[in-house]
């Protein structure tokens, strides 16, 4: 049985990796995967806290988060496809037609 500290440390590391990847990565799909990584870090924290507190509601929240992440993925990928069709690129740096 892993103690709460270990679970939280893993969760923080995953969240940090996701946030860093969001800033560093230049491919839209990878950036999107980084966001998913952050959401899963949140799920891990919820489950860890839920077991530590002996309270089931934390695990129920995880279901909500998974559902929301799925909805977000559906919309996000659709937007990414629309962008790709219009511009034939997935590099975030090339999508900057609105600079002053």
């Amino acid at each position, binding site marked *: 049985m892993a103690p709460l500290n270990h679970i*939280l440390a893993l969760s923080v590391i995953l*969240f940090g990796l*996701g*946030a860093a990847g*969001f800033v560093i990565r230049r491919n*839209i799909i990878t*950036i*999107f995967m980084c*966001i998913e990584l*952050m*959401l899963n*870090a*949140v799920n891990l*924290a*919820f489950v*860890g*806290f839920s077991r*530590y*507190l002996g*309270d089931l*509601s*934390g695990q129920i*929240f995880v279901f*909500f*988060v998974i559902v*929301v992440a799925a*909805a*977000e993925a559906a*919309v*996000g990928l*659709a*937007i*990414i496809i*629309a*962008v790709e069709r*219009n*511009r034939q690129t997935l590099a975030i740096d090339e*999508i900057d*037609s*609105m600079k*002053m």
Partner: protein
Amino acid sequence: MSTVQASDFICILPQIILSGFAILVMVFEPFVPAARRVMLGWFALFAVASAGAALAWTSTLPGTAFGGSVEASFFSIFFMALFLLVAALCLLGSFDYLARDHVQHGEYYALILMATVGMCFMASSTELILVFLGLEISSISTYILAGFKRQDALSNESALKYFLLGSFATAFFLYGIAFVYGLSGTTNLTALAERIHAQSSPPIMLWVALLLMFIGLAFKVSTAPFHVWTPDVYQGAPAPVTAFLSVGPKAAAFAVMLRVFLVTFAGEGAVLFWLLWISAALTMIIGNLGALAQTNVKRMLAYSAIAHAGYVLVGLATGGEEGSASVMFYLLVYALMNVGAFLLIAHLAGTGEHWTNIEDFRGLGFERPGVAACLTALMLSLGGFPTTAGFLGKFYLFRAAVGAGLTGLTVIAVVTSVISVYYYLRLVVVMYMQEGTPQAPSAPMPWPLRVALAVCVAGIFLLGLFPGNVLTLAHLAAMPLP
């Protein structure tokens, strides 16, 4: 565990009505011929009106529902009425815009309704998980709306940026909720407040949780330094959608901020105060200075929207009943003037929104005096000229701030809003004092848009001259907040 009763459903009746009609719009859409799809828009407007009637009924039965996770209070009803007003105005302004730009689809109207449902839950929920769900319902709907012209490269880009940064922010907000849950064992805001106040020295992790939630919400209300997405998204999105998302989700996120930061975390005053103080100052400076350099009207108004979020943050930093009431009054005023301005620009920009540069408005004052007068009134109100509501809104915010001893912040606010007069007046000067003819082909203004604009402009002057009743309502709504 409490069982679900009929009264629970009455508490969320406006949301139920909006969701039901949104689904109906989607079901009817394939059966309505393309030329008559505007009918779906009127149907959606009817839904908003019905939800308004339901809200009026709910307001006579205040209380909590579903085991204390949703409430009907003056606070929630004030904000829900604001969201319904914004939705109605944006619908009225969208009918002819969508036909003109060949994107007349029923989904647009359904998404506006869905986004409104999400915002209503954000304002009425006292449970962090439900707040999160409301936030996501409204965000996901507005991501799609921002990219609604899917053949248009700018609209795509706007949706992509809004989506990526919006989801990024959501993850922060959610991580904050996870820590709050871990530290206190509850996500119910009422129970949470009791547990926080019971502790003599709150754990340092609580501040981390607070900071994470603040970052998430700061993205949503576009405060500096989390504002970078705002100009691109507001410029690229279809203008009626910009009108909606520059006001609706922003006001909803401010409602969450008022509830979470001023009630639940009221004990963490000092940390929170400086957080709000610094971001208010930064937001006002960056927003107003950024707007000075813009040549595109939509982009200029995007920076102005950032600046206005800064003024509202001044009210949040003030706190107390006075501060909260002035925040709510200002959000209503801001909604009227910003929706009006973006809807008018949506009309003036012409097909495909080709003419959105400030220079394109040359000579509009002579060519179309009525339209120009309308736009002038909106700009003067945004700039905060006396007799308009924009002035009174700012006056109440700043007076509350001075009353609470925030002199430094008020000085920054006043100086930056004086700077803002320059860029609002520049548009007026271009319309009235520069030779030339307007670039966009002159199209007659459709009557639904006329109604929406009449409401906005009349509202600005009414609230500017006779603010009494609305201000009383705002104070009533702010009462439960300490």
